[in-house]
């Protein structure tokens, strides 16, 4: 692992992304133990303060400390996006592998099912899902996660299909291993690199989508802060408290940028063949 990191950190894109991501994750972790101020404690008297030494990022319209809110919001963004990726991988990869292993009618059926999900406009459907089940973090996760499933299913199927004819799989097959066992022991480990890269990208996208849902009021609910909701609240106050809009937006941009760089770097590091081809 350390060896891998040493090599990987030589990649500029990976290094930058790694540092940013570590910082964001650290902020989120620390927020469980400590924040400069309590984010659920409203102090109307000190509302709308500009950034200063006492409040690094200023305060919002309820007098809450924005730096603390960004920390807790990071926790929320990461949790939602991460679980949505896990849903995508957890359902998508088995579906894709199964389709590739069986081929035939099952394959067609599963992939057409995928197409149905793909045909739905994602954001609109997320709005519908939250209308059915009510707004909240859990339902935001489901709404984002569902649309990760076909992405990973397609990726896994494609990768598995290209692996099946390989010699070492043929060997395993002639040794009498079941297709499930071959999938678990040989196929999945060999597509792990691809999955990791895609997961990073889906993670980054998840953060933007979560912010979007929270921005229209369908994401995480108060009293817990979320970046998207902070932007929503900031909107009408932009002319006299621009920091309220600028800071959460920057938090999103930096986090997503970090993850995307990390993904790009990982792709280069994990797949030297691809790198060669690209350059």
């Amino acid at each position: 692992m350390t060896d891998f990191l040493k090599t990987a950190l030589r990649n500029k894109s990976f290094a930058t992304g790694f540092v940013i991501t570590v910082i964001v994750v650290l902020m989120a972790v620390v927020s469980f133990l400590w924040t400069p101020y309590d984010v659920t404690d409203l102090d109307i008297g000190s509302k709308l303060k500009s950034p200063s030494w006492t409040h690094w990022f200023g305060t919002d319209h309820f007098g809450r400390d924005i730096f603390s809110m960004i920390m807790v919001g990071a926790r929320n963004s990461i949790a939602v996006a991460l679980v949505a990726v896990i849903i995508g991988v957890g359902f998508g990869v088995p579906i894709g592998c199964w389709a590739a292993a069986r081929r035939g009618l099952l394959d067609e059926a599963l992939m057409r099912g995928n197409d149905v999900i793909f045909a739905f406009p994602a954001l609109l459907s997320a709005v519908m899902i939250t209308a059915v089940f009510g707004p909240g973090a859990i339902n935001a996760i489901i709404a984002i996660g569902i649309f990760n499933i076909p992405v990973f299913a397609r990726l896994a199927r494609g990768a598995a299909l290209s692996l099946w004819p390989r010699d070492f799989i043929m060997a395993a097959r002639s040794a009498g291993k079941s297709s499930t066992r071959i999938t678990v022991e040989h196929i999945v480990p060999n597509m792990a690199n691809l999955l990791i890269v895609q997961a990073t990208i889906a993670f980054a996208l998840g953060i933007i989508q979560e912010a979007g849902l929270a921005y229209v009021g369908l994401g995480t609910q108060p009293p817990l802060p979320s970046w998207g909701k902070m932007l929503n609240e900031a909107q009408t106050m932009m002319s006299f408290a621009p920091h309220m809009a600028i800071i959460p937006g920057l938090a999103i941009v930096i986090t997503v940028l970090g993850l995307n760089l990390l993904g790009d770097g990982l792709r280069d590091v994990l797949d030297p063949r691809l790198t060669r081809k690209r350059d």
Partner: protein
Amino acid sequence: MRTLKRLLAAALVTTAIAPATMLGTALAAKTSLIMGMVLEPPHLDPTAGAPAAIDEVVYANVFEGLTRIGSKGEVMPGLAASWDISEDGKTYTFNLRQGVSYHDGSAFDAEDVKFSLDRARAEGSTNAQKALFAGIESVTAKDANTVVVQLKSPAGNFLFNMGWGDAVIVAPETAEGNKANPVGTGPFKFGSWVKGSAVNLVKNDAYWGTPVALEKATFRFISDPAAALSAMLAGDVDAFANFPAPETIPQLQADPRFKVVIGSTEGETILSTNNTKPPFNDVRVRRAIAHAIDRQAIIDGAMFGLGTPIGTHFAPHHPAYVDLVNQYPMDLEGAKKLLAEAGYPEGFKATLKLPPPSYARRGGEIVASQLRKIGIDLEIIPVEWGVWVPEVFKAKDYDLTIVSHTEPMDIGIYARGEYYFNYSSDAFKDTIAKLNETTAEADRYKLMAQAQTIITGDAVNGFMFQLAKAGVWNAKVNGLWENSPVQANDLTGVSWSD
């Protein structure tokens, strides 16, 4: 900063966006008005739907009733030029105006009045305020210009009720089409409706009364507070009777282009409490909540200072209002003691369902934070109106909710046992029953005061504040209402200076 801004502006104007200058407005005195509204009405028939947005477009502009409500809440003659009330207070004889015609050219007469009132109270009627007509025994068209309404029992507020948007007079021939193409007797005719965007009204040249100064009135629907602000600043909208972003009021007040009028509304904004659901069935718990609520913090935090604290369910601008704000002063220790007496020394968990308006969503966050200090842990559940009405209001499946009761003079709801507060007090019901039969003003006020004291004593709900109305309009517009005694945007007196 200033210079930079000007330079940037100049550079951008000259290089990229020349058409900006094409927007230069005509210089003659304007005869059109664009009025911003937060909600779009679902349809335009005030006799077949409750949404205030319907009345806000058509009341007094397109449709008129027998009486009409003035800007101070007074009852004025409408399609009835005058009326006589019998000695026993049960028979109302309305003398109708003559020479009135509908927008489609057909004439208005007593039969239309009979039709409209009978239709509203009929079985299977979709009128949202059927209670207004429940007291009517019969309606008779005595002759073409006289209508006699017989009541089951005397009702002190019958004339006021006839001024509601739900009681406007419609023609039998066009009644069914009013949802999409409203035909009334008012000074404005329906022009067009761009769904999702705006309703256009045009002047009715054949109006029976004083002609209006405006040739055209547009109601544009902007639900987003931020968009409302930008529209106002950009001049896309001339007026907002009720501006949805109180936080921006200081900015608008400082701008000489705008006139900002802070008026009052009939909206008592309260923390509605389910009075039969434990632990809220214990008056000590409700009083503890009352002691823990800091009204001024809610007004400052949620409404940016706009609003008047109330201690009961009554409008502070009403002469019969009793100031009970200090009956439960802020006292966290006292509140905790009350909770302990009620058997909740550690506090408890409950839910707070919040409908969409920002007074509820923001106010709810503040209330939750205040109650947390006495150990009441509220889970905030935001709901849309579509869910709030059946769940909270109808099925009474809730602990606490925040809502503004915008109907005028609605303290009587506390006498309806089945109302969603689940409050039942014989003393209160007696008071309201007496009030309904009393006609002398002084006596009525006394009973109103008594009613207010009873509900505050029982701490039925958390009484928070009277919703303010922040009207913002172009400084050159005259004649818009400063207060809203009924939900309406009466444009009959509106004109532009110069």
